């Protein structure tokens, strides 16, 4: 499998007034192969979202480098994003903030189609691929539920024909009954269009179902990574074990999760 995204010793720091420097991402190594789905799991503040933003060029690196198809990803400054990097697209956490409230859904997906390198599927095809009707294109974001908006956001990202799709906690704001469904949808549309998927979530139970490989992040570092089933069934790092033990399983047995 060829490597699509390579993160090599990436470090991102924030200067906090009066409290010195905070290292949000601390020398992370991570690879995502072509057509691979990698789940990045960790709790709030572990640096997983910062890493996602860095991959998109939204955060400057204090050390290390991030490569897409072997070429380094520069920081997205004030100029428009170079064409090469538009092949990385992101689906954000908050479905209520990730769509422009004053533009029709169709126009927003159209933005994505315009930057597509190859043959872009039509807006209708894109909407259908995420399980929405063609008529959705002429409506405004507020007419949709949270789950539907997230589908629109996925369609918009896929319209650009990305090689790498990043989901930054894309299911965290959704109802539990929708989470697994939307996550599976993301995996399906990404793979159908030949994109790799970096799926970031705090929910190991969902990530396990859709990811080929899982990386577990704690305090800015990746403490464990491996095939999804192996990490789930036979976790090596104590933090991974704690994380797994704390997941409440809906088995109706009344087992309290371990602290």
């Amino acid at each position, binding site marked *: 499998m060829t490597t699509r995204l390579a993160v090599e010793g990436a470090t991102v720091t924030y200067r906090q007034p009066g409290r010195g420097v905070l290292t949000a991402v601390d020398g992370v190594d991570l690879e995502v192969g072509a057509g691979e789905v990698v789940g990045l799991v960790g709790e709030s503040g572990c640096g997983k979202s910062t890493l996602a933003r860095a991959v*998109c060029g*939204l955060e400057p690196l204090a050390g290390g480098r991030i490569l897409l198809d072997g070429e380094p990803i520069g920081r*997205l400054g*004030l*100029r*428009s*994003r170079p*064409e090469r990097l*538009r092949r*990385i*697209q*992101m689906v*954000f*956490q*908050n479905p*209520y*903030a*990730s*769509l*422009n*409230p*004053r*533009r*029709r859904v*169709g126009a*927003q997906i*159209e*933005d*994505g189609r*315009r*930057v597509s390198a190859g043959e872009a599927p*039509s*807006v*209708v095809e894109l909407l259908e691929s995420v399980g929405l009707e*063609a*008529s959705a*294109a*002429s*409506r*405004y*974001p*507020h007419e949709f539920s949270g789950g539907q908006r997230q589908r629109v*956001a996925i369609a*918009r*990202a896929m319209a*650009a024909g990305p090689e790498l799709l990043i989901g930054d906690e894309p299911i965290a704001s959704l109802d539990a009954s929708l989470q697994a469904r939307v996550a599976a949808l993301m995996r399906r549309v990404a793979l159908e269009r030949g994109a790799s998927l970096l799926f970031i979530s705090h929910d190991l139970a969902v990530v396990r179902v859709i990811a080929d490989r899982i990386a577990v992040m704690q305090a800015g570092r990746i403490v464990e990574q491996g095939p999804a089933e192996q990490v789930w069934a036979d976790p090596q790092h104590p933090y991974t074990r704690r994380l797994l033990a704390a997941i409440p399983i809906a088995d109706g047995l009344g087992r309290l999760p371990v602290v």
Partner: protein
Amino acid sequence: MTALPAVRRRSLRLPVAWRRPAAIGGAVVLLAWIVIALLDPVIGLQGPLQRDVEVALQAPSAAHPFGTDELGRDVLARTLWGVQASLPLAVVLVAGSLVIGSLLGAVAGYLGGVVDEVIMRIADLVFAFPTIILAMVVAAALGPSLANAVVALLIVSWPNYARVMRALVLGARGQEYVVAGRLLGAGPFTSLRRDVLPNVSAPMLVLAMLDFGNQILLLAGLSFLGLGAVPPTPEWGSMVADGVEQFSSWWLATFPGLAIFSVVVAFNLIGDSLRDALDPRIAGAVQGSSL
């Protein structure tokens, strides 16, 4: 792409704003003044400049409902003609400072860095002086005329808009849909025009509405100080100024003063209602209100 069924674009929800009694009242007053401005030449009232020293300084009567001034000019005619100076100039002032201030504020907020520093420090410089004093200085330097008064007021008014716009853009810039647009290749100006400005325009519009009254008062103030309208042009501010000199003839200052008052109140009522109508918490739906 298939043809999309036409859907009426959700406008700024003006109909809701108009349904409020305060807004209707304000709109009626304003409309009345606009009609008066248009009809002034038609009504055929005694011309505002026509002097008749015989009847100088007469109290309100049937012939002169608002009385006459020291040159025997009809105060009613002058008050009604005065709207032709005040209202269009207020529109120019508000539109001008809205455009200049919004542009500079948006650029400062979106680009940040040196651009932001330069624009906002200039704005601070203007803020450092009391508005009317600075306007006086500028107007005095340019020479008294209505056009110069407008320029002076534009110079002192834009920073207010720039500051609010900058804050709004700073807030909107980090929104996920703006970032998503940038990831899809939008440059800063496309992003600003397409994703940021439409979503911050509502509060700016309200600000402008509430500023109308302010601008009319400032303009009247400059005229009052002899830095705006040059006699004999009828302008409310300068009429009030003349009236104050003739203290025993109360009607000279009262009627143009009431005219200023009515327009200022009208704009404020409309502005208030517009703010309520555009407030997402009240108008709902914009941000997808839940239960």
